[in-house]
């Protein structure tokens, strides 16, 4: 059965990441262009591991202020109130809108954290040339690729809160310093996910049967 499991890389073939055409490239050639669409052909995404680590480490660093600093600050006649991501969720929960609390908790706290942990795990498993459960690890990658964008939710919520609550002197809402950090975390983790090449998960599996 493993005789069938031939990858493009082993045959000296490169698949175009834009139009998916598989074409033959001499192994000595570093640069090649797809004959159908002209995109650069790579065996694997260029510097995948290094780029993913770079984006991911930047995201992990910014994740700390994103969670500790205030996300919004509300100024009213009765005083000021600052909310972090977590205290915002708690506020929603105690205010009785628990479905919203759950949505915001999942999108703003669970998704970024799981995404960071999953990417660290995938990078380490590739680094150790692990052959453990490649199908499950590929599925994990697919999952973080799919849900990563939903972390942007809180950014949109804040943008509309700020725009609406400008009630003269009565109350104003301003975005706190955590908003920019959180936005950066979302973008950086998305860039990290896009730079990671899931085919790296499968390369050790190949060699093991060689």
């Amino acid at each position: 059965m493993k005789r069938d499991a031939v990858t493009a890389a082993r045959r000296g073939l490169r698949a175009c990441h834009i139009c998916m055409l598989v074409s033959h490239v001499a192994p000595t050639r570093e640069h090649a262009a797809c004959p159908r669409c002209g995109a650069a052909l790579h065996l694997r995404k260029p510097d995948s591991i290094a780029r993913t680590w770079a984006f991911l480490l930047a995201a992990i660093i910014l994740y700390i202020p994103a969670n500790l600093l205030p996300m919004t600050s509300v100024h009213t006649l009765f005083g000021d109130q600052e909310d972090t991501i977590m205290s915002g969720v708690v506020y929603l929960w105690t205010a009785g809108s628990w479905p919203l609390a759950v949505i915001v908790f999942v999108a703003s706290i669970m998704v970024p954290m799981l995404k960071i942990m999953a990417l660290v795990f995938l990078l380490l498993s590739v680094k150790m040339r692990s052959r453990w459960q490649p199908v499950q690890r590929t599925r994990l990658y697919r999952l973080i690729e799919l849900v990563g964008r939903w972390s942007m939710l809180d950014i949109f919520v804040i943008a509309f809160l700020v725009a609406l609550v400008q009630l003269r002197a009565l109350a104003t809402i301003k975005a706190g310093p955590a908003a920019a950090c959180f936005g950066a975390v979302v973008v950086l983790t998305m860039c990290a996910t896009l730079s990671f090449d899931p085919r790296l998960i499968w390369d050790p599996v190949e060699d093991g049967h060689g």
Partner: protein
Amino acid sequence: MPTTGAILACHECDLLQHEVGLEPGGVARCRRCGAQLYRSRPHELDRVPAYTLAAFILYLVSNAFPVVGLSINGELVQATLLGAVRGMYADGDWLVAALVLVTAVIAPFVQMVAMMWLVLFLRMGRVPKSFAKVFRLLAFTRPWGMVEVLMIGVMVALVKLAHMAEVVPGIALWSLAGSMLLLAAAGAAFDPHLLWSKVSDAR
């Protein structure tokens, strides 16, 4: 399944496999990792531009009219999408403003225009020189267009404010919901592999 002779490599595990014919609406998956390789989408060249054009018109409406409003003591405060971006920018949060502008306005529009451009030319049986460039632009902007996330974000903001004042949904909220559904339909009718095989046929 009969093979068509062409080979393709899985983009997630690099396994080489033969392309097989699909029933209308069928999906071909990698037999090793299960990744979706390509789909059969009947009438792709008719459905994609139809859905995309409708989504585009509704998205213009979504940008031109207020999304939500707050009514306090009879006074109505309304917010448009671009108004929200301007508000963030005016507060000095240029990073957040730029992020919202790109993901909620620029990327969705680029995506819709690029999709219509590609498919309409192909429909006329023509493959212009810049076809590959526009396709690359579409592939690049796809992850960053977040209409559906924006929609849910607006809903969360609405509920958050509902206890403070009377919330007035704007016209753009409805058109936003419509374009979200139409974009999903366009995405479901669209298959890049199919599009490129039509490019090969047209040349």
